[in-house]
Structures are given as C-alpha cells and as structure tokens.
C-alpha cells in the first residue's frame, strides 16, 4: 500500500505535476493547499426471491483540489487527471484567496505518518468475479430459512468496494492508502396470522474478500431470526419520562448522534454547538470516557489516514467526565492551535473534508449489566436503534427504538417496539448513573449523513440514564 509508483501510475501523474498543481492552487495566495486523488471500484449483488438476479459495479475516479486561506476554503475537482483539466480545477479553487494579500496567519503543520496498516487485505475484492460470491448469498438465504418457518421473504445483499487514494499537500506530504470495505446485509420478513414484521442484520468491515465465510452466513442468520416471538408479542408501551437502560452495542448510535456531532470542531469553531464553550469542563460524571477511534483493526470507521493525510488515532473527547478534545480537521486544529485528530473525512473527491466521527464509543465502566437492570424499578431497556437526529445548537435528540423491553422491579418483562426516545445531549450525559463493564462495538452498516455520507461505527457498554422521555401510547 506504500508503492508510490503504483499510485502515481494509477492516477497518471508525476510528482513534478503534483507540485505544479499545488503551486497553481496557491498562486493567488492562501496558507495551504492539498490534492486528493481517488479511484474507487464498487460492486454489489442482491439475492431476492431466492435468486441472485441483480447486481452491478460502479467506478468513480477523480481529483479534488482545495485551498485554505485562514479558515476559508476554495474547492474544485476534476473527473479526469489530464493536466489541463486539473490546472483548471486548481485555478477555480484558488479563487478563495483572490484579492487577499499573503497569508492569514493560521499555521498548518505537518501531520506525521501511520504506525500500522489497519486493514491488510488477504484477498482483493477486485480479483474475484461475481460467480465467487453467488453461493455465499444462497447459503445465507438457506441458513435464514432453516431457522424459522414463519419467514415469507429473504433479501441478502453483498456490497464491496476498494478505494485507492493518493494525497499531496503544500507541506510536501505525500500519502497513499488502499481502503477495502465489505458489507453484507440480510433482511427477513416474517408472517404470523395477520401480522407481518421485518428484521435486518448486517456486518461491515474494512477487509478483503476473506470476509465471506460460512461462519458469517450463520452469524447473520442467527441474528436476524433471534427474538422474533418477542417481536410479534411487542406492543408500544405507555409513554412518559422514565429510566432508560441502553443495551451494549448498537446503543452507541445514541452517543454518536446526541453527543458526538456536538463535539465535532466545525460546529464549535462557529459557535453553533451546545458544547462550544465547555472545553475543560465536566460534562458527565467521573469515570466516564467517550472516545472516537480511527485505529480499530478492520473496523468500518478505521483509517490509516484520514482524507487530509493525517494518521488515524484514538481521540478521547471526554476523559473521566471532563470534555478534553473536539474532533478536528486541519482547519479547526489550526484555529484552536492543536494537532489535527485525524477526523478530516469526506464522502469522495467531490467534497472537501470536514470533521467527522470514525468509531465512537464509551469505554467500559465497573458495573455488572445484570446489576444495572436490577437497579431499575420502572423503566425501559433498549438495544436496537434505527435512525436518530440531533439539533446541534440546542442538543435535543430523538432516536427510534425498534426493539426493547419494559423493566419492572428490576426485571425485563414485556417486549416493546416502535418507540422514540427523546432528550437533550448534555442533560443525558450528566444523568448517566451507571456504566457497565461490557463495551461492545456494533459492526453493522452504520453511515453518517452530515452533509456527506461516510462509513462509521459505534459502540457502548450497558448504560443507565436516569431519566429520558419515551414516546408511547
């Protein structure tokens, strides 16, 4: 993955041309310029109605050119790497510095190099054709069908991609990365009498085609068919304010939405976040650590480098209850006078990078999960979320809970479904009263949609929030 010649040949450029492009981008002034070359191959197969009868591949290729003048951004891109077209894009990006004289005074520093390849590929997805994966999807379907006679439909999708990037900047840093991604999603529809329900399960990793295995098919089938009796029996509970126990794993999406976004430095440098004046202050009880981590091996949110050529790192946003870092791209790091944290990410070369999360989770505490549930007299246990949303300024969030249970006198009782949990990020953080010792990273196909779509993951130990609003009947 560090074969410079391979990447230069892939993008049909020379190092001399890279320097020329950066010079052109800064020809009207500015503090910093960078180039982001991308060559991505996507591939997908879909099993539906017992046949893998649709699929395809897609190719995306181009270069994005950015000029930073202080905190201001000029951005343009070209969908080919012919020098005249790239020079045009560089000139368009340079417009941000038009009419300005010299530099803004902000300092953009070198970022260092990666320590470890977080996603070595044993089998390159691009070297296998569709026929290699058809039996796997059939196996998934059989594994699912064999577990529950109430299933009326199964859909299974395999999506993979390999994204090759080459980055060069005005500090002279040249970085390269090859980023694989493999995702499998299975959805089953169950019918019992007049009632119909659906359930999905997915796995997604930065990994090569070695992801595909019989064990994965079994794991997905097991998950998608688990708890169906409870689902058919589930009802909407009576709504109101109550204690909420977040189950380990997918509850991390609440951390991502309700707190993580408000820690992204672009919202803070613009004064828009509810946390913008809270650096160094206590935001939750002692002992709680909240992390955004780009270094988890093969994780969907992992990055050897971010999309600004900054090595991935593990960033503590909250340590022992104190807000200690925002998530930075190069612009905000420069503004705050701190090193970038490797959070400058983008959907593809068409977008300029902005601060984005990677794998966001709360570290384990000391409590036993069973003890946390036992401590609740009346409340709700939730462990399967879908979409959520937050208002950055106010901190108000809403989450849709697909599945959970009532807690009555310390025991899980009636199953519940289709409810929302609503609250306020800082208030909820401050209201955490127990953290379990069972951190679990959820490896589903989480995608964050802040302006651009990027793959992320999340995790959580079992956590008790003393009081949140639960929407019900």
């Amino acid at each position, binding site marked *: 993955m560090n074969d410079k010649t391979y990447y230069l040949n892939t993008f049909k450029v020379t190092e001399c041309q890279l320097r020329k492009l950066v010079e052109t981008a800064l020809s009207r002034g500015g503090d910093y310029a960078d180039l982001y070359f991308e060559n991505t191959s996507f591939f997908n*197969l879909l099993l*539906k109605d017992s*046949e*893998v*009868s*649709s*699929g*395809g*591949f*897609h*190719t995306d*290729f181009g270069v994005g050119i950015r000029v930073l003048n202080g905190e*201001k*951004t*000029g*951005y*343009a*891109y070209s969908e*080919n790497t012919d020098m005249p077209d790239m020079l045009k*894009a560089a000139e368009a990006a340079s*417009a941000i510095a038009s009419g300005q004289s010299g530099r803004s005074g902000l300092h953009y520093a070198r970022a260092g190099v990666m320590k470890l390849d977080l996603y070595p590929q044993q089998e390159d997805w691009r070297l296998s*054709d*569709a026929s290699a994966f*058809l039996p796997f999807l059939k196996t998934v379907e059989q594994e699912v069908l064999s577990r529950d006679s109430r299933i009326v*439909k199964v*859909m299974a999708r395999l999506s993979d991609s390999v994204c090759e990037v080459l980055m060069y900047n005005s500090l002279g840093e040249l970085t390269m990365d090859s980023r694989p991604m493999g995702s499998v999603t299975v959805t089953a*529809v169950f*019918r019992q009498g007049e009632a*119909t*329900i*659906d359930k999905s399960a997915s796995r997604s990793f930065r990994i090569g085609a070695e992801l595909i295995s019989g064990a994965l098919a079994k794991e997905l089938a097991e998950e998608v068919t688990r708890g169906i009796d409870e689902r058919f029996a589930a009802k*909407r509970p009576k*709504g*109101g304010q109550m204690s909420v126990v977040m189950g380990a794993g997918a509850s991390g999406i609440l951390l991502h939405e309700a707190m993580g976004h408000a820690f992204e430095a672009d919202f803070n440098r*613009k*004064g*828009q976040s509810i946390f913008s004046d809270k650096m160094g202050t206590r935001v939750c009880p002692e002992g709680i650590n909240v992390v955004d981590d780009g270094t988890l091996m093969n994780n969907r949110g992992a990055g050897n480098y971010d999309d600004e050529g900054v090595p991935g790192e593990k960033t503590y946003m909250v340590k022992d209850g104190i807000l200690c870092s925002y998530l930075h791209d190069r612009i905000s790091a420069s503004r705050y006078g701190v090193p970038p944290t490797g959070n400058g990410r983008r959907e593809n070369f*068409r977008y300029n990078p902005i601060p984005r999360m990677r794998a966001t989770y709360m570290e384990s505490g000391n409590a036993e999960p069973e003890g946390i549930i036992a401590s609740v007299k009346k409340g709700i246990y939730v462990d399967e979320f*879908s*979409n959520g*949303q*937050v*208002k*950055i*300024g*106010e901190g*108000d*969030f*809403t*989450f*849709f809970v*697909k599945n959970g249970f009532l807690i009555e006198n310390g025991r899980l009782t009636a199953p519940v479904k*289709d*409810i*929302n949990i*609503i*609250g*306020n990020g800082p208030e909820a953080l401050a209201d955490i009263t127990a953290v379990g010792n069972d951190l679990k990273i959820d490896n589903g196909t989480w995608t964050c949609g802040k302006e651009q779509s990027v793959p992320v993951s999340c995790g959580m130990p079992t956590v008790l929030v003393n009081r949140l609003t639960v*929407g019900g*009947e």
Partner: protein
Amino acid sequence: MARRCMELALEKGAESVRVSLGKSVLDSLTMLNGELDKVSRSADRSIFIYLFVDGRYGTFSTNRLEEKELEDFVAKAVTMVRMLGEDRFRSLPDPQRTAKDAAGGNELGLFDPRYTSRNADMRLKAAGDLSIYAKVKSGEAGKGYELISEECEYSESYEDNYLIDSQGFEGRHTESSFSCFSEMTIQDMEGGKFSGFWWESSSKADGPDICSCGQKALERAVRQIGPKRRRSGKYRMVVDAGVSSRLVAPLLSALNAAAIQQNMSFLEDSLGKRMFSEGLTIMDMARTPGKNGSRLFDTEGVATADAPVIEKGTVRKYFVNTYHSRKMGIPATVEDISRPCLMPYLKGDESTASCEGISLADILQRCGSGILVTGFNGGNCNPVSGDFSFGIEGFAFSRGKVTHPVREMLITGNMTSLWNSLTAAGTDALPSSRWQIPSLAFDDVSFSA
C-alpha cells in the same frame, strides 16, 4: 457517447440496453458571519448502463468516459451479467408507453437561458446579498438574544440527463437551479441556543427571494426562545407546510410495487379501496411546465401523466415499473411519483369556493387549540404496519394564536388512522418545493412529552 456505449453492449451480446448519460455543473458560495467562507465548483459527468443479457439483468456506472475505458467497462459488465441468475421478468418497457415528446430537453421550460450568462461576480453579489449578519448584529441590543452565527449559501446549477434505449427511445431533461439557504444560530439571555433555517430554490434566476431568506431563518430561530414542556395527551395537530411532506412520504413509499411485492407495505391490497379520509387527494402533477419536480419521463423512459394517486381517500395508483408489472401480473404505471400535489380540504365545508386561499392562520383559527408542528426531529415509520413515532418541534396554540414553543415532544400513531383524521389541508405549499404539500390539520393525535 451514449449511443456508442449501447452499440458496444449489443455487439457483446446484450439483448437490449438502456443508457443514461448525465452531466451537471454546480457553483456554490458559502458565507459565514458576513464573510465569504467557501467557494466550490463541481462539474460531473457519468454514464449508467442497464443491461439485459440472456434473460439476466445488471446495472453499471462509470465516470471514466475515455473510449478505451468505456470499451473495457462494457465488456466487463456484459460478462458479469451472464454470471447472475436468470430473471425472465426483466425487460425494457413497452415502447408504446415511452415518452415521445422529450427529445429536446427543455419542453417543460425548466432551463433558464439566463444561466449561461451568469458569472462569478454575479454569484458573489448574490451570496453577499443573502447575508444579513452585519444588520442583525448592529440592531440586536435589547432584543433578548445574541446572534451567534449566520451561515448561508447561494448556489447555481445545471443538469442535463440524456436517456436512450435499444428500442429507439430517446429522451432528454435539462434543468437549471438557483438556490439560497440561510441558517441562524442565536443565544438567549439564559445561554440557550436556538437555530432556524430557510431556503428557496427555483429553476428561474429571479425565482428565489434572496433578500428575505436570512430574515425568515432568523425569525424561525427567535420564535423558539422560551420553550416549555407540555403534558402528554391527545391534541389537535397542525403541521406547517414547510415540513408536512414528512407525513406524506410514508404513504407514497407504501404505494411502490417494490415494497408491496416484498410484503413491506402497509398499503398492500389497497388499490381501488377507500383507505383514508375523503379529504385526502394527492395528484401527481408531473407535467406542469416550469415547476420544480416536473418531468416528461421516468427513469425507464416511460411517459409521465397528470393523474390522481389517492382520490378522496381511495387509492387510485401503485407505482409499478416494467419489472414489477411482469412479476406481479399487474398493469405498469410509472416507476415513482414526480410531483405530488395534495389538494385543499376543509372538513364539513368541502365546496370549491371554501377551499380557495386557505392559509396556515386560517387552519389555526379553525382548529382553535392544539399543537403546531414546525419541524420533525428523528423518528420512523414502520413500512409494514404504518406505525410511526416522530420527534417534533413546534408551538402550542390557543384560540387560533400561537402561545409558546414546546420542547421534547413526540407524536405516535398509525399512518392509516392519522390520515383518516385529516380535517384540513391548505393552499400554502411552498413554491420552491418539488412536493406540493400544504399545511395540514389532524384531530386527536397522541403527543408524548
């Protein structure tokens, strides 16, 4: 290029082919607190091919359009389709159903020729006019709030999509777009932050009202100061035209044949049946000239038509493409709705004259008291059951007047029940919007707080 691609695919053995060639240009300028913060220029082109080979089907795309690259791309695509399972229901649409009036691209008048004479200075001036930061900051003393940030964006774009198939269909759609967006974040005296946004978009250069955009965003932020919690219970709900499409989207999704065929729709077996209040009529006004969302053909090239989707509460149309028509044995329509328009209605007063000029204020007056929803914050609708739960933001109202903002509230219910409790639909759909959904009123909606 599209024809060359089609010829290559046929030469490689494809039975039939559809090719879509897309090109777009976007210029945008973002202002932060009155100063230019970001300038960007995008120019995209891509080709999609839909291949039908030996009774099999696949879709492929690339933005590498050099001749040699395309040849390799098509050859590889045809090879891959041959590896997939057979699907005898896949085919191009009946040629009788494809549009015959869309070869030029601007038949609907959605491309404003003034776009070609726009330049960087004009766009910069528009972005500057959009910002009201200095004006607000200079006059905020004594207002009870401080403006924390103003972020606004002005953009112009051009899209050109060309679609052909191997049965002789040819269609083109061109569209220009001029858009402005403003978001204001303010802080009240107690340190509470509130944000509000406004946007406008038009295919015409003089369409968006740039000068009022920031003020509207500011007003939407300011009116949220001082929110109160309300008790849970059943209230009359009025939904502002700016967000009412959120409640229509689950209905239209449930009418899609793909969802019905997969048993993932709560409107299965509803065609021709009265499912909702007789006040609910949704038309697909796909062919209205000059309006956002209008188009003469869908993604298969099938001609669109102005037609009812739900008429007086009765489902009149599923969205059925060629594939699902053949697979489910039902008549094909169009792949999806283009420009939904929800018709005005006043329960108990259905005469045409009464249903003209119904504003949000009129609806609030008729409803008396309840909760006005001006935003949705998260939530979901179960596609199989129609059960929904959405976070909302908005205001309590009494005697037809807004009294105070509410916070941390949710609505829950079922889509079929909700739309059976429709009591009013206004005539105030936002002109900028592709979906023409006005302010709405419903009885007895469950709110949790």
